């Protein structure tokens, strides 16, 4: 039963990811008063890509062809760890938050390799920048996450979340810092403005797009899907860690449905905020990114310290 729910939750994750992307795009269009595509547009794109015949460069090796599957399944595994609608699921025990970060690293590793595989300047540029940014983002993220895990004294997400739930609404300065840090990291990691711009193909600025420039057909579909999934994962992390209310703690149908609605609501709000931010802020130069992430790291550190000094001082 539990396993069933776990698998269901994962499929939900996978299924809802494009929807979130669509919704985000829609919000941005509203804000930039353009005419918005339908919410289901991402699904259509994916379907189209899946049915196309992929074109592969003659310089590509087996790694280039296998990489999309690896990336996608790694991201999906990450999704199994994060509680979406319910906590205390068995899958979340098989791997904790550190492992989840590990999965992201795994996907990124192969994405970067795939970028290098063709031997074009674009691919190299993309992977180089991607690895740089991520290697700065990872410690910041872990700092933020550690703040939570030290508060809950566990690295197991679902237990941590339920711990926050039990405590009810406590005003923790550390959480405020951690939340902000995590948001910054999420923006960097999912390649949104101001760090990267998913909609442009201008070689001076592009990072993620540069790596996948050579992909087409189902491979491209998988990678796109994986990145949408990643976006949603971060969203859910932020939503469920810092304002977990509404998530199902028992597996009754009512609770689960309630949880689903709750998370969708939260994500919708988050997407709106993100859209606003992306509309207001301009993309920054590549070599300002370290200041940006440094700030995120600083916040994470402050969160940690304020936890140690203000909240858990002996």
């Amino acid at each position, binding site marked *: 039963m539990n396993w069933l729910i776990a698998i269901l939750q994962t499929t939900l994750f996978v299924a809802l990811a494009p929807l979130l992307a669509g919704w985000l795009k829609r919000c941005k269009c509203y804000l930039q008063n353009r005419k918005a595509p339908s919410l289901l547009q991402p699904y259509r794109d994916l379907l189209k890509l899946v049915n196309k015949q992929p074109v592969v460069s003659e310089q590509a090796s087996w790694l280039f062809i296998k990489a999309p599957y690896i990336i996608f399944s790694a991201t999906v595994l990450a999704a199994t760890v994060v509680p979406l609608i319910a906590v205390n699921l068995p899958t979340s025990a098989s791997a904790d938050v550190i492992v989840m970060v*590990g999965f992201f690293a795994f996907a990124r590793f192969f994405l970067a390799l795939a970028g290098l595989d063709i031997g074009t300047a674009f*691919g190299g*540029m993309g992977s*180089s920048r991607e690895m740089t940014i991520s290697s700065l983002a990872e410690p910041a993220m872990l700092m933020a996450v550690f703040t939570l895990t030290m508060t809950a004294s566990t690295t197991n997400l679902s237990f941590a979340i339920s711990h926050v739930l039990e405590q009810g609404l406590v005003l923790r300065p550390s959480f405020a810092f951690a939340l902000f840090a995590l948001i910054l990291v999420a923006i960097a990691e999912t390649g949104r403005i101001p760090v990267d711009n998913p909609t442009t193909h201008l070689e001076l600025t592009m990072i993620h797009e540069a790596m996948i420039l050579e992909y087409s057909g189902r491979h491209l579909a998988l990678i796109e899907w994986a990145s949408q999934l990643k976006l949603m994962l971060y969203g859910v992390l932020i939503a469920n860690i810092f304002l977990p209310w509404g998530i199902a703690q028992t597996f009754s149908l009512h609770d689960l449905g309630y949880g689903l609605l709750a998370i969708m609501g939260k994500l919708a709000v988050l997407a709106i905020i993100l859209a606003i931010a992306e509309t207001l802020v301009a993309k920054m130069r590549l070599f300002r990114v370290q200041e940006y992430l440094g700030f995120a790291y600083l916040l994470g*550190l402050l969160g940690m310290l304020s936890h140690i000094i203000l909240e858990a001082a002996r």
Partner: protein
Amino acid sequence: MILFLAYCAVLFSFASGLLASLSNQRQCLLALQQRYLKNTSAFINHCLEEHHYPHFLRQAVFILLGLSGVFAVLAGLSVLMSGAVLTDQIGLGLPWLPWHIRFDALSGFFFLIIGIAVVAVSLYGTGYVHHYKEKDHPFAALGLFTGLFVMGMLLVLLADDAFVFMIAWELMSVASYFLVAFQHEHAANRRAAFLYLLMAEVGALAIILGFGVLASFSDGFTFDALRHAELSSTWASIAFGLAVLGFGMKAGIVPIHVWLPEAHPVAPSHISALMSGVMLKVALYGLIRFCFDLLKDVQWQWGVVLLVIGTLSALGGILYAMMQPNLKRLLAYSSVENIGIIFMVLGLAMIFLDNGHPELAALGFLAALFHAFNHALFKNLLFLGAGMIHQQTHELNIDMLGGLIKKMPQTSVVFLIGCMSISSLPLFNGFVSEWLAFQTALQVDVLDNGVLRSLIPVSAAALALTAALAAACFVKVFGLTFLGVPRSRHSEKAHEVKDKGMLAATYLLAGLCFLVGIFPSVIISLINRVSGQLLAQTLPNDNALSWLWITPIASSTEQASYSPLLVLIGAVMAGCVCYWYLRRDPEKTLRIAPTWDCGFGGLTPRMQYTSSAFTMPIRRIFAKAWIIDEHVNKDFDGAMNQEVKAVHYSLHIQDHSWPWLYQPLERGVNKLAKQVARIQTGNIRTYLGYSFVTLLLLLWVIS
């Protein structure tokens, strides 16, 4: 019995060395044979033939070496299983101090590490040493010193008194020095060897003094005596400092690491593998033995020292590694990084131990030893892989390589596995130990000391940064070496390695990397015995180490849990599903097309990212970490010298500890020597004056 296995390991390594030294003695052997064995079997004659002899000899030498490795593994496993502590004495050494031998769980664990590495190397060796010309690089020297090197390392683990410990330790150093100097026709190698031996000497002296401090508070040099030394905490700290200096020198911690990236790469690759993968572990063993066993009561300040040093080394190591275009130098630097990580976790263990949380200390200890084990596996794997690449392409500069994944498919697979484990991706062994390290760091809440409580998380974040950078670094390595388009004719012409043994060795290590990543609890339970013997404390609950889960902190999955097997299953499921779904209809197979060249045409290999290009953002961001001198000069010509004909780019990156630590010392010694030399004036009357003045001085002193 178990001890017998250990002795066998030592003796076989020695025997292989001796046998190798016969490689130029064919004539003598023939003479002997004619003299003594009248009716020799056909086989011996066959072996002694002119063109067979060297081949057979090499075979035999490496077989013996392999046997020693096998015996080492057996001995290690059996002592770990039985949990016994075996002691013995050998009638060598000083008249009042025979060689004391002790074989316990700790030694056993490191025996296991060395054994595995040696087996792999001996499989690999025959194929690898093949391309050395006997005239310039005599196999006699190589084989002899390899045998002695391995023997030295094993003896260090067996030693139970300071004297034999030092003998074995120095044997290890000297033998490896000769191996570093093996290809001594290059001045760089000679310099590296000199630096290496100098460092080894200084380190050894520091270690001797460390023992000396203990010995002067006890009677005798046996470890038993040293264990019972009553030291004041000051003297204990002095001893600890000396030990860290000595063993750290060998382990290559920042800032005294500089010899390491010089020395390790210039040895033959299988030796580099042993040095980087195993010898550093022996240094680690020494530190653990010294701190946790001989100096009983650990102080948490020491832990902080190790923590800080470790963090520095980890970050510094990986940052320096990033910038290296030479594959083996890069690997050597990454050894510095991994040693740094191990030191960090050991420091955590010390801190927890002194603050009265032995179970957490055990956890840290576990993480440290486990990482040591893993590092031995994948660092060996990578060095052996580098050796294959070098053998096939005669090239170690990764800017000259590329596209090897098509030329050397098998090598590329094992190398990929190595890269994935070293950049600690889930499902591989590197990740597990790193995960444990994080778990240890996260237990900081139990501490009362505010400083520690805020220091440890920071170092944990530094660990995260290190891991991420390592991933970036090895993306660079694999991507530039194996992927893309060949950048030079050498890599164009490369072929897969023919020799079965070399592939077998790498496959063995790669397989172990994967299996240990999936079933870590096997190794963990072994290490648990070690910590049980050394700290008298195992992980809180044994059922936590079921084959499926690792839940190091609490018995339930309450606090932290990782089940590689489930993860693997999940991954396979997810992968298969989408694979099957997407590949279902056959007419949508791939279409192969030329790479998109933005419509300009003529993509050349030189358009690819190079190593320095790949790491440029990192270099900009952490610019302070190196001494960079970067030059771009353009040749102008044409009308008014306006158009750029060619652009020359040169980049030279140097370690900070050269100008800050090493060169001042060198200059100082030379200056001092110059001053001192002035007493040798050459005028006899001055000399008479010396003796005159000395006489008067002494007479005045005594009266």
